[in-house]
């Protein structure tokens, strides 16, 4: 965007304006060039500020930066901001027990997510959370709600595919879902459960 050679020429021109007797002498021009080239280079910040002062560059530069800013904005909106299937689910609020629980960004980059209900009917004093590959195994991402009949449940939109998960009981104990097939775990040696999600 800012050509260093242009800045150099500009500095040479400024220097020559200050020494009119040197303008006609090629050797003097060479000396000036050498001196300018050998002089300490201004900082990047300084050079950027200098460039903005040049009318042509500042006009073009402002347009270019504005264009790049808009482009970056669109790009980040379209890709970076979009939740990938591996990104944690972001709940818009605490689970209420009403179905389906609404989450922000319920679609994935590839296919629409499928609301999937999980039920836990074991012992838990305070809390049960759903942890799995779909929410980055974060215990605060998908809490279950206790119903009046004592069951815990949550409905979460999951990307289609195979997902490994477990329940975290009272913030510490991780247990597999007794209602679902088991998933082996070579990495940590603690079995989880597996669910196949697809649009029916």
């Amino acid at each position, binding site marked *: 965007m800012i050509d260093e050679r242009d800045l150099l020429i500009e500095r040479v021109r400024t220097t020559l304006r200050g020494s009119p007797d040197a303008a006609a002498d090629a050797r003097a021009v060479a000396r000036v060039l050498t001196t300018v080239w050998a002089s300490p280079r201004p900082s990047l910040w300084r050079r950027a500020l200098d460039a*903005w002062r040049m009318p042509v560059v*500042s006009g073009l*530069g*402002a347009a270019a*930066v*504005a264009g*790049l*800013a*808009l482009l*970056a*904005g669109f790009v*980040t*909106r379209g890709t*970076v*901001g979009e939740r*990938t*299937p*591996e*990104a944690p689910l972001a709940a818009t609020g605490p689970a209420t027990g009403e179905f389906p629980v609404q989450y922000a960004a319920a679609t*994935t*980059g*590839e*296919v629409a997510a499928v609301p999937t209900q999980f039920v836990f009917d074991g012992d838990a004093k305070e809390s049960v959370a759903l*942890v799995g*590959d779909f929410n*980055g*195994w*974060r*215990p605060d991402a998908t809490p279950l709600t206790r119903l009046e009949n004592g069951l815990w449940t949550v409905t979460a939109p999951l*990307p*289609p*595919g*195979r997902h*490994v998960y*477990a329940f*975290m009981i009272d913030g*510490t104990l*991780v247990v597999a879902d007794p209602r679902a*097939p088991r*998933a*082996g*775990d*070579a*990495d*940590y040696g*603690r079995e989880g459960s*597996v669910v*196949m*999600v*697809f*649009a*029916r």
Partner: protein
Amino acid sequence: MLVALGLVLASASVAPASAQGTAVLPIADAKARRAVEREIASAEAKGLPTQPLVAKAMEGVAKQATGERIRVAVAEQAKRLEQARILLAPSPSVAELTSGADALAVGVPGPMLKQIRAAWPATQSVVMPLDVLTELVARNVPAKHALEQITQLMARGATPSQIASIGASVQSDVAAGLAPDAALEVRARGVMSLLPSPAAAAALAPSGRRP
């Protein structure tokens, strides 16, 4: 100029801060946490997605694994992601890489990932076929048989949902006591009966299908 700078700042604020960052890894042992962060940074330097690695670390935290075990698990996952990237070339998505890594983790032979990728157009995600292959192999269906059935379904124009339904049905059948191989055979036949004949499927095949 101020307007341009304002636009730059505004557009920068759109992106979530450190979406894939490791700063929040809740590993109590500081030395172990740094070791895990180094593994993730090393993978990132190779151009691998960090999100599946952070998730792997978080899984270890949830399962109360030791810091060293988490580090090893993250390193292994990074290796699998790297292998999957090669096998699913040219441009696998993060989801495809993760599915590929999961397939390798349950013992699906690497070349089978390549065969799955080749069976569908490059523009179509292979997440579902890979996930079903993973699930079938995890249920002790021989990998070769599982691959044959899945690629045959893909060639006949089965949808990702139809392929997924096989994975779910075989899951239930095996849980009910049916032999994994037999369960796959019968479920694949069921889906196959819903699909057009091979000749019709070939005629309807989307352009870009790889040989």
